[in-house]
């Protein structure tokens, strides 16, 4: 590629961050999509792959006797320090990476070259896995109060909104258009979540253009319509998620917030979540704490507090909890906005929905939630996560904060979520990786213009296919805890929020997070499963012996017994591992290797799957790379490609098994 000045540098050292004296010697490759470091050490040939789109900053440090150090900070919080022997090489690498990490056209992004070897049909299937119209149907819409509006057909009213929008039945096109003219970027109030149980809803919009005194009849009618769509309550909460001061400052610019005197029956509420600039700086400060090598208690605690990060997380949670309580306990509808209604509003609406609706705590439901509140409602992924070269002031960890909120909730309710921490981390990774088309661009309109669905693949399909890796073994769908609203204390305290080292320190060797509950549970699960297998084997054997002894030919009569025995807990054990349990959803994956479909023994299938998923999951995110110029690996983001030894393993296991 034209931007690569030097494709290969030898005798580069990769510095171990924990012990700087130790460094691995190897070769550095620059490809169109990745920086790859391959260690020389012949027995390991360890490789480190970094996607260009993950690169956040590159820093050339002062040349030393050993060479020229290059520090690469990644958006997934990895930090790589390389020492390149020649200053000239270092400069070339530096200049190349600066350019490669800041693509100017969407077409330069990885997702346009990434090829997981799926055919067209599979690709299309992947894109329909998450279907928002299905989601609105699930909520119980359209109904007597809410209808699908076509007012935004061809993005005529608001170009950052999707075309499919739900509005109150009584809101006419006239009201909607009138209201949109009174809202920043014409983002008028629309439905985000409908709470079937009591007809209350969560709506979202941008700030009104009220200035100091301006009014808009249609906007007032719009809020009236939202209130009327909820017969159970005679008022609507309007939640402005900004600090009051910020909202007031906006009035000078002709924007601002709703005046309670002008809108009938609203209750107005500020919840002070800081703006994207404050959040960006806060993350920066926290990452500085993370970079400390072995922080003392006071380094860590003071640093964390001064970063303010957890305070901001708490503010978002508080807002979400407020809305969830208003909806579920007071039965009141809530209109949420911030300034433009695409950052804080997205955070708060999705946290509230997650608290209210157990569906969003499932794998698929969570994908739907992100698709709905973030992707479809025009969260500016491109600007916030700097996919293309742009204004650095637009960059801010908005969705990272939402993902962290979810993690904090998972820590407080370890059994309430179907997915695990890894799922969140992988989503975070892919928001920045640009390997899948889901998070490209700033709006649905842009994505359609780019024909994203025809040219790239969907992350959701990829995650869904590997769902066994993302399941929380503690979750059971039919448990009371996993149903209904999550009940947090009215005002959770700061001490409930913790530092997420699994995310921010995940690349720190020697600081690796402890083995989690989940890890141990998986071990126990496997143990249970094996015991069951043994039990079944023993029973079969016993049966055979009995048969031989009795010299009886009626063998089949007892066949059903052992399977009944094993059935009692395979049902929950196998959820994590057997694709069979998802046969209902298999439709979307007709491409699964046919051999898996007609295995005759469920046991062997389970075994197989367990093992083959190993390498796939571990290499997960970078495994998908479609780089052709490195011969040492065959890229495969798609199919299970069981490594050789796992194949062997299975055979030997099977053999032992059969001798039983």
């Amino acid at each position, binding site marked *: 590629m034209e931007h690569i000045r030097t494709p290969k540098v030898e005798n580069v050292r990769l510095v171990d961050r924990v012990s700087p004296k130790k460094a691995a010697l190897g070769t550095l490759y620059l490809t169109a999509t990745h920086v790859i470091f391959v260690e020389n050490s012949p027995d390991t040939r360890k490789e480190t792959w970094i996607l260009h789109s993950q690169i956040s900053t590159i820093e050339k440090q002062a040349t030393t006797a050993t060479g020229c150090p290059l520090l690469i900070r990644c958006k997934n919080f990895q930090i790589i320090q390389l020492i390149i022997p020649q200053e000239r090489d270092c400069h070339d690498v530096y200049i190349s990476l600066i350019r490669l990490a800041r693509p100017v056209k969407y077409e330069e992004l990885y997702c346009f070259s990434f090829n997981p070897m799926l055919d067209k049909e599979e690709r299309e299937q992947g894109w329909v896995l998450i279907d928002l119209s299905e989601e609105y149907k699930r909520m119980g819409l359209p109904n007597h109060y809410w209808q699908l509006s076509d007012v935004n057909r061809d993005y005529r009213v608001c170009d950052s909104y999707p075309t499919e929008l739900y509005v109150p039945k009584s809101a006419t096109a006239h009201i909607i258009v009138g209201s949109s003219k009174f809202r920043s970027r014409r983002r008028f109030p629309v439905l985000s979540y409908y709470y079937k149980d009591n007809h209350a809803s969560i709506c979202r919009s941008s700030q009104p253009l009220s200035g100091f005194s301006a009014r808009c009849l249609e906007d007032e009618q719009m809020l009236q319509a939202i209130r009327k769509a909820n017969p159970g309550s005679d008022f609507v909460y309007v939640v402005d998620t900004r600090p009051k001061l910020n909202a007031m400052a906006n009035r000078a610019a002709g924007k601002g917030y709703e005046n309670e005197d002008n809108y009938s029956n609203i209750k107005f509420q500020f919840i002070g979540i800081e703006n994207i600039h404050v959040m960006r700086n806060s993350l920066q400060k926290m990452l500085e704490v993370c970079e400390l090598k072995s922080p003392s*208690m006071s380094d860590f605690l003071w640093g964390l507090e001064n970063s303010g990060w957890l305070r901001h997380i708490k503010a978002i949670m508080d807002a979400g909890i407020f809305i969830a309580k208003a909806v579920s306990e007071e039965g009141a509808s809530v209109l949420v906005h911030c300034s433009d209604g695409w950052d804080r509003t997205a955070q708060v609406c999705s946290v509230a929905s997650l608290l209210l609706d157990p569906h969003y705590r499932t794998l698929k439901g969570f994908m739907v939630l992100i698709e709905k509140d973030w992707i479809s409602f025009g969260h500016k992924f491109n600007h916030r996560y700097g996919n293309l070269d742009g204004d650095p002031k637009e960059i801010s960890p908005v969705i990272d904060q939402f993902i962290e909120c979810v993690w904090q909730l998972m820590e407080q309710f370890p059994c309430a979520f179907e997915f695990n921490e890894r799922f969140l*981390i992988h989503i975070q990774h892919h928001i920045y990786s640009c390997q899948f088309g889901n998070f490209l661009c700033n709006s649905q309109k842009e994505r359609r213009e780019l024909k994203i669905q025809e040219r790239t693949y969907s992350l959701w399909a990829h995650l869904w296919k590997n769902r066994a890796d993302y399941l929380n073994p503690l979750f059971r769908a039919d448990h009371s805890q996993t149903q209904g609203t999550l009940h947090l204390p009215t005002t959770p305290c700061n001490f409930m929020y913790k530092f997420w080292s699994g995310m921010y320190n995940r690349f720190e060797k*020697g600081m690796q*997070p402890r083995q989690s509950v989940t890890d141990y549970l998986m071990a126990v699960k496997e143990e249970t499963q094996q015991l069951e297998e043994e*039990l079944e084997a023993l029973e079969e054997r016993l049966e055979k012996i009995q048969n031989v002894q009795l010299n009886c030919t009626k063998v089949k009569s007892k066949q059903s017994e052992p399977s009944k025995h094993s059935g009692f807990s395979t049902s929950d054990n196998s959820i994590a591992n057997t694709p069979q349990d998802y046969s209902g959803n298999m439709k979307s994956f007709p491409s699964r290797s046919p051999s898996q479909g007609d295995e005759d023994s469920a046991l062997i299938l389970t075994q197989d799957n367990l093992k083959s998923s190993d*390498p796939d999951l571990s290499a997960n995110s970078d495994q998908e790379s479609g780089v052709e110029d490195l011969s040492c690996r065959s890229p495969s983001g798609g199919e299970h490609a069981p490594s050789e030894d796992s194949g062997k393993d299975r055979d030997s296991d099977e053999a032992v*098994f059969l001798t039983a």
Partner: protein
Amino acid sequence: MFSLKPPKPTFRSYLLPPPQTDDKINSEPKIKKLEPVLLPGEIVVNEVNFVRKCIATDTSQYDLWGKLICSNFKISFITDDPMPLQKFHYRNLLLGEHDVPLTCIEQIVTVNDHKRKQKVLGPNQKLKFNPTELIIYCKDFRIVRFRFDESGPESAKKVCLAIAHYSQPTDLQLLFAFEYVGKKYHNSANKINGIPSGDGGGGNGAGGGSSQKTPLFETYSDWDREIKRTGASGWRVCSINEGYMISTCLPEYIVVPSSLADQDLKIFSHSFIGRRMPLWCWSHSNGSALVRMALIKDVLQQRKIDQRICNAITKSHPQRSDVYKSDLDKTLPNIQEVQAAFVKLKQLCVNEPFEETEEKWLSSLENTRWLEYVRAFLKHSAELVYMLESKHLSVVLQEEEGRDLSCCVASLVQVMLDPYFRTITGFQSLIQKEWVMAGYQFLDRCNHLKRSEKESPLFLLFLDATWQLLEQYPAAFEFSETYLAVLYDSTRISLFGTFLFNSPHQRVKQSTEFAISKNIQLGDEKGLKFPSVWDWSLQFTAKDRTLFHNPFYIGKSTPCIQNGSVKSFKRTKKSYSSTLRGMPSALKNGIISDQELLPRRNSLILKPKPDPAQQTDSQNSDTEQYFREWFSKPANLHGVILPRVSGTHIKLWKLCYFRWVPEAQISLGGSITAFHKLSLLADEVDVLSRMLRQQRSGPLEACYGELGQSRMYFNASGPHHTDTSGTPEFLSSSFPFSPVGNLCRRSILGTPLSKFLSGAKIWLSTETLANED
């Protein structure tokens, strides 16, 4: 109606049933109408009727009505009203729901709202007003409040004074344990020729199946067994301190280098502070020993004796390795600093006005220094592990008296090195060996007599540090965090002899005196046999004791059935810690770099002896190197475990410090929900392995039928119910404890306690409250 004269004490006393039938006591809730349940030897001192116990700070709607009594063991609030808002109560057989043992009381505050007066009550003090309310601050962070609006003012006052008097006794022998054990001796004397049952022994593990006795290290044979267990050669049990002839703060039997003769030891002992000769604690399988020793006060002899001792220790090492000395007084915070940190922690967790700490939570936590101290102990202990494990050096812990910091460090080192001490029995024996027998001054450090300037929560610090290890290696310990919390609480119950004395000698001396004064025939016994904390059946039913079991724990005897043809269970091949969270570069090709999965750490190559002179220089980086290498591999839970000690990894032990804080409680949440699910699963595994062992095709229900055998608190209920048994309603993050009825900070409806108490920061600030009439 309001009789001013307190009614005569009408108490009912009964003997504790033997542990085997302890389930009976649970099914006997028929407490006679407002009558206290009393233990043998327990008497009611004073009581007052029509007392209101406040449940919430801001509303009286939940308040309970009943009788408040003060006995020589506890204060007890007796009521017929059920506890509101509370879904679960972990029942202690010795204490009612509203009871507080006298030794658990930290401060007593009486208030008269009409006169706007309040007073902190000391012993033998006068009270010049009739209290309208009584607030008890407990050592375990609880705050209990009673109102006397409807009670007789005189009896209310008398009860308050009685509580103040009895909770601050002037003499050790006034502690309830003496009365209790005296009564039991009397009772048993009337019966058969008997030593009271259930006493004295180590008690059984925690219930369930294990009934291993905890070695108390009171006898020669316990020490001898420990030598054999650790495979220590070159060490012997020495009996020169029999009858405490040499030192009154050492156990009667100690383990010393074989090369030191009794005669030499006797001579040396004079030079040590408290005549505390070097005490062997433990030996590594490589021969390195852990030894603790007081300072040598005799300056002239210092070098010579030190040399002799060190030589002897070297001689006892199979490789004649050097001795590494660690001066704990110089490297660790002292007991006053630990105490100060604890006081601040208590302020922060319980009593500080909520709004103030809200924004600065992390820095306030830092300001207490508590976590930093926990970290310091862990870090230093880990460094000593390196010396013993990797450098093959014997380690000598030096401390002025050798009975404070040494207890904590010696125990932590052993918990990290020896998986035996991570079992319940092992952990208890460790506490016996390094704390109780080694002369940790529980009486002073726990401040049972409320007059010691020497109070310091080192034992809690040890439990906290153990919790950090448990948190980092959840599958390495047989016990749960509930066990640790309950163990901490047990130091506050003055019934047990375990945590009552400054030394074993003190127990013998004091109880012999007591026995003589009470005409108790001791026979051959050395002092009275007090009940042991390790006899958990005295406090909890067998069912409740199963909460001590950690469902993660995979003991060495994992049911790995290897019946020839049946394939054996292989432990998880994946090392999740590196793969779970992402994309370790080692796995980029799908090839797992060939690192040893379960390395045998004991087989590290012997390194040459370091030159003592340059030791300090290179030592730091060597230690770091050792830690780095250790952490780069998955831990063998049946081998050494090392703590991660960076600021990121040391956490606040919320169950212990927040269990009484209502707003910290997450209903149906917290790690207990995972514990619950895991217990079910572990139980299921147990059932299945039991089935395998039986190898009969009997019906499955039969195996689930043996629920009595389960080692888990939560049981898998069988094939047809497993999936429907949801999370029990009563689970919350503070389970099995309940903050209901505790008045701290903001209560149920949100008014801060501080506001309620008109802004007075009462805790421990006697000066500001001198405004008595």
